[in-house]
């Protein structure tokens, strides 16, 4: 941080943060704050866009017309979330095009959960319940984040995410009322996604390099471990109501703490996935790159057409 005693801009920024007020795009902000926000919002936007793939893969195979409509609408919402977040990022001076380039070049990351494959229709429900549920735990505090456009985007996104979570849970609940094969499909899916869902909160607090500064800036509001605990406590009764178990022999209620004790995810696996060796990292980026590159001629056509229209309008004005 710079010398706050002599810098009125920095002092004003610190006062705003200290009061828990919002920083707006035209306000002065430290370079580090701006960089951190761009990194975090872009990563979030990319997660929405990459997150369209694992569920989108099942739109074509949805087993009822109603489920097809629900899933199609949900994946469409994710595209909408990506749009709001890219827009929030643009208020910090970075364009959607630049961010997309950074995504497909690997310079910016997205949530590692989407590097896991979707292998059955139950995964659509499990992603809604556990993955969207974990995302909500992470994101609800961000509605109060210090940067205005990000916080406002998050309010809208969180409402939609909670809707998706209920839909996912409702799918699993319906499947559990179905056949033995369907119940087995749900349990198998939960077994595969439980640990990756816990990883979504990031590494344990003592190994999370960026957390302290982000919390001081009011960009981040709760520690990784706190949020993970909250998620476990929330999910256990939901699993019981559903009739599934989590694959963790250490999971039990601790009356003394007033929380559930639980085991640790495989952090070596987590690091492998983060480094790019996850089951679907290459596939997800290749899919995004292909769509971006194959759409280039369409975007160029739209730009060229708009330019011709603008030139024609200008010409008419000149003649008048």
């Amino acid at each position, binding site marked *: 941080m710079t010398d706050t005693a002599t810098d009125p801009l920095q002092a004003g920024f610190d006062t705003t943060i200290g009061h828990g007020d919002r920083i707006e795009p035209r306000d002065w902000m430290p370079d580090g704050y701006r960089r951190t926000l761009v990194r975090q919002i872009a990563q979030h936007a990319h997660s929405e*866009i990459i997150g*369209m*793939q694992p569920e*989108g893969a099942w*739109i*074509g*195979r*949805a*087993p*009822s*017309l*109603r*489920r*097809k*409509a*629900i899933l*199609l*609408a*949900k*994946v*469409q*919402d994710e*595209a*909408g979330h*990506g*749009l709001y977040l*890219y827009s929030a990022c643009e208020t910090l001076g970075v364009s959607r095009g630049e961010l997309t380039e950074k995504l497909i070049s690997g310079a910016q990351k997205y949530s590692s959960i989407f590097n896991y494959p979707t292998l059955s*229709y139950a995964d659509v429900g499990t992603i809604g319940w556990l993955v969207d549920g974990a995302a909500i735990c992470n994101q609800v505090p961000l509605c109060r984040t210090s940067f205005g456009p990000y916080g406002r985007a998050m309010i*809208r996104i969180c*409402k*939609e995410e909670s*809707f998706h979570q*209920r*839909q996912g849970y*409702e*799918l699993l609940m*319906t*499947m559990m*009322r*179905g*056949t033995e*094969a*369907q119940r087995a499909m749900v349990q198998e899916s939960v077994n595969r996604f439980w640990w990756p869902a816990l990883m979504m909160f990031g590494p344990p607090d003592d190994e999370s390099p960026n957390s302290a500064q982000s919390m001081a800036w009011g960009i981040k509001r709760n520690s990784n471990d706190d949020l993970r605990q909250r998620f476990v406590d929330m999910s256990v009764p939901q699993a019981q109501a559903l009739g599934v178990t989590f694959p963790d022999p250490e999971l039990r209620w601790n009356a003394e703490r007033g929380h559930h004790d639980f085991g640790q995810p495989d952090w070596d696996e987590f690091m492998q996935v983060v480094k790019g060796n996850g089951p679907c990292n290459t596939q997800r980026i290749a*899919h*995004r790159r*292909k*769509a971006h590159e*194959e*759409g*280039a*001629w*369409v*975007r*160029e*056509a*739209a*730009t*060229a*057409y708009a330019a*011709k229209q603008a030139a024609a309008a200008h010409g008419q004005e000149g003649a008048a």
Partner: protein
Amino acid sequence: MTDHVEPASHPAADSASHPAPDPSDAHGSVYDGLLGGDPSHWAFGTDFEDPLAGVDTTVPDGVDAGDLGTYCQMLADDALVASQRLSQWTSRAPDLEEDIALANIALDLLGQARLLLARAAAADPSLVPALPSGSPVPPEDALAFFREAGQFRNVRLVETDNGDFAVTVVKLLVFATARLALLERLSASRDHVLAAVAAKGVKELTYTRDYAGRWFLTLAQGTDESRRRLDAALAAVWPFQAELFATHEVEARVAAAGVGVDPATTADDVAVVLAQVFAVSGVDQPTQGALAAVQGRQGRDGLHTEALSLLLAEMQVVARAHPMGQW
């Protein structure tokens, strides 16, 4: 459901009052999810606005129930197969705005298909494929997921591959223009369900036709590359358009009964609209001949291209693995 915010590009979303469906209505099950009830069942493009609430679902006199059911299948299958194709663009469109717009159109068509298949099943239950005793699969899903390709009655235009964005735009322009002209007339059907579905569809297809028309113009006038691709797309799609206006004997009979519309009666209006789009875009009227029938049979007779069975293989795989499943 009120807390769910509509993506900006959707044309109209009035999710206001949805009166409860008549519980004495034997076909209420399909409309329940569309009209409200459990909000977790609700999704964009599937809510059915007031027109169908309390609609009389008895088969009008003077029309054969089998003909009405088959006619509803034709209209439903066009929408269902087109929706399945369009949804394949999800996460693959040229830009996020197009991803969202194409999903909206797919959702609109899916909503039409669901209601029309339910209507087909209600009009003539013998059309619904037999499932194991006690199967919870509703009749509209049985029709969608348990019929063979030869039992689908969609025109061949909608089942062909998406191709590039230009092919999709041209297909969508031709399909939406024809379907809009058809549904405008069908909204006067003596069958109250068809009239209500058509009235809702007219609003949706007006948007769809406009969307496709704007992109047609943009691609025509954009770059040399987009013009080259558009010309190629038009040449590839045009042979499929004539089938949209060929009158099947079932269509002739339901039209005579005042329940359906003879598609041939829309051909001139559709040609005028398309000619306007071509003229504004500076594109010559295509001259490719119509795709031949096979021993006189086309899509409406269950005779399809090679693309349909592959499309259905994907669409039906999970449902068929679980004929006793609940979703």
